[in-house]
């Protein structure tokens, strides 16, 4: 191990996802921080210098101040969004992975289902939210359903790609030791598919977040999406951007979680 590698043996993870974290040296860390300081500080100075009105673009300091002041108010909305996101994603991802494992066992059925999956993947599920609200009211249900519908197909097509990557020799190896179909699935097919499943889960979670926030903007009185519409209608831009900041943080968090899982469990695939 070279001496100034931060975090040791990084960089093997999901290369398909990013080039982040691959052997970052101290100098690079310093450069990254310095750049961030210059960008944020420069933005602050520029906005003040040109006296840009608060309602067009608030300076970073105002955003942070607004966010801290209103945070107790925003917190329950964050909770609402997380409930919608996590339950919708859990349902969508669970069903998606199960269906992927199932249909890849039957290539014929797969061909028949494929167009419908494609429609589900390409149609923005936000379009269904007004309809779902009519049917299920303004509570959690329509949003959870929308999130599940948005994330499920993403998880499914990527997992299916993973399960389809069968290596006949590795299955023959397991069979030569008398492995059952179930053992072959858990000990050969599933680990082989894992890197693609993780990619699917990450994309699914990001789509879920988009759909959760979008559905809260469409109607109802709760959630971070609702905060966005409320703050913008009140022209409280610092708080508005504060919520945007939370949303980007959630997106990054999703990315980092799956990146770390990938590094731990799927680093064999470089």
């Amino acid at each position, binding site marked *: 191990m070279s001496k100034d590698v931060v975090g040791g043996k990084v960089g093997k993870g999901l290369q398909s996802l990013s080039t982040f974290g691959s052997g970052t040296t101290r100098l690079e860390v310093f450069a990254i921080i310095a750049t961030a300081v210059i960008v944020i500080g420069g933005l602050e100075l520029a906005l003040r210098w040109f006296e840009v009105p608060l309602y067009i673009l608030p300076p970073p300091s105002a955003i942070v101040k607004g966010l801290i002041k209103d945070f107790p108010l925003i917190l329950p909305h964050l909770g609402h969004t997380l409930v919608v996101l996590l339950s919708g994603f859990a349902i969508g991802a669970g069903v998606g992975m199960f269906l992927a494992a199932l249909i890849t066992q039957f290539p014929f059925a797969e061909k028949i289902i494929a167009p419908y999956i494609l429609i589900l993947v390409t149609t923005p599920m936000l379009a269904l939210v007004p309809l779902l609200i009519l049917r299920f009211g303004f509570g959690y249900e329509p949003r959870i359903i929308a999130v599940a519908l948005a994330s499920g197909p993403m998880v499914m097509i990527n997992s299916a790609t993973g399960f389809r990557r069968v290596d006949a*020799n*590795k299955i*023959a*190896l*397991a*069979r*030569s*030791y*008398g*492995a059952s179909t179930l*053992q072959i699935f858990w*000990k*050969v097919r599933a*680990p*082989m598919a*894992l890197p693609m499943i993780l990619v699917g889960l990450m994309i699914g979670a990001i789509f879920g977040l988009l759909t959760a926030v979008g559905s809260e903007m469409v109607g109802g009185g709760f959630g971070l999406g609702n905060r966005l519409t409320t703050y913008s209608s009140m022209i409280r831009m610092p708080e508005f951007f504060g919520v945007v900041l939370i949303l980007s943080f959630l997106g990054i968090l999703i990315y980092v979680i799956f990146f770390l899982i990938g590094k731990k*469990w*799927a680093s*064999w*695939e*470089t």
Partner: protein
Amino acid sequence: MGQGVLGATTLSVKAATKQYGDFHALKDCSLDVRAKTIVSIVGPSGCGKTTLLWAMSGLNPLTSGEVILDGTPITRPRPEVGLVFQEANLLPWRNLMDNILFPFEIKGQKPDRAWIDHLLERVSLKGFEKSFPNELSGGMQQRASIVRALSLQPSVLLMDEPFGALDAFTREEMNQLVEEIWLETKTTIVFITHSIEEALFLSDQVVVLTPRPGRVLNIYDVPFERPRTLEIMSSKAVFDLTNRIKADIYSQHTARRAAAE
């Protein structure tokens, strides 16, 4: 383990035929493998060598004919038969030790750690237990796969061109290793190869197959003492045997070309 008396037939292939549609991969192919010997099967590509080996392993049943191991026909994989693949075929998400323990996991059997340790020592892989396949060289990977196959102490080891992908020097090293392991364990080995040199170095008998359909053309005894030294391998007797086997294979080429015209 049910090993036959020295010299008795352990594994016998009787009138093996394998058809894929109209294509005969094997036709009436018969041969006997005596217990505790090494038998190599050579022949041009597409002569059904791998088909024959997979039939012996029970992974790919024959269209007709049978493979008999110690009196019972093989119709599906048996624990007494170990298989080494063309590629090392390690599972890339498992480290070396977990790869070797894979068969025990499938069988729900307790591994014999002392034996596995001994094997690892034998093939100079001690200290690499935690390494992942992509961190090992091709030769090391194939050595690990041999340990995996031997860890269950099979009475028969089937090897399907195991060193075909390795460079010439590594290949010679691996051949010596197989001989050493055989001298220690006396496991019956059926070895498929493209290399006549490799076949003669390792075997007690060399079987030459003809292509399309795969059939036994000739069987040669290789009666040289072991370990096979460079001296033996460069002797006139080995040279003559090499040429006879080559002639067999060339005669197939000419026969095929004549048939094509």
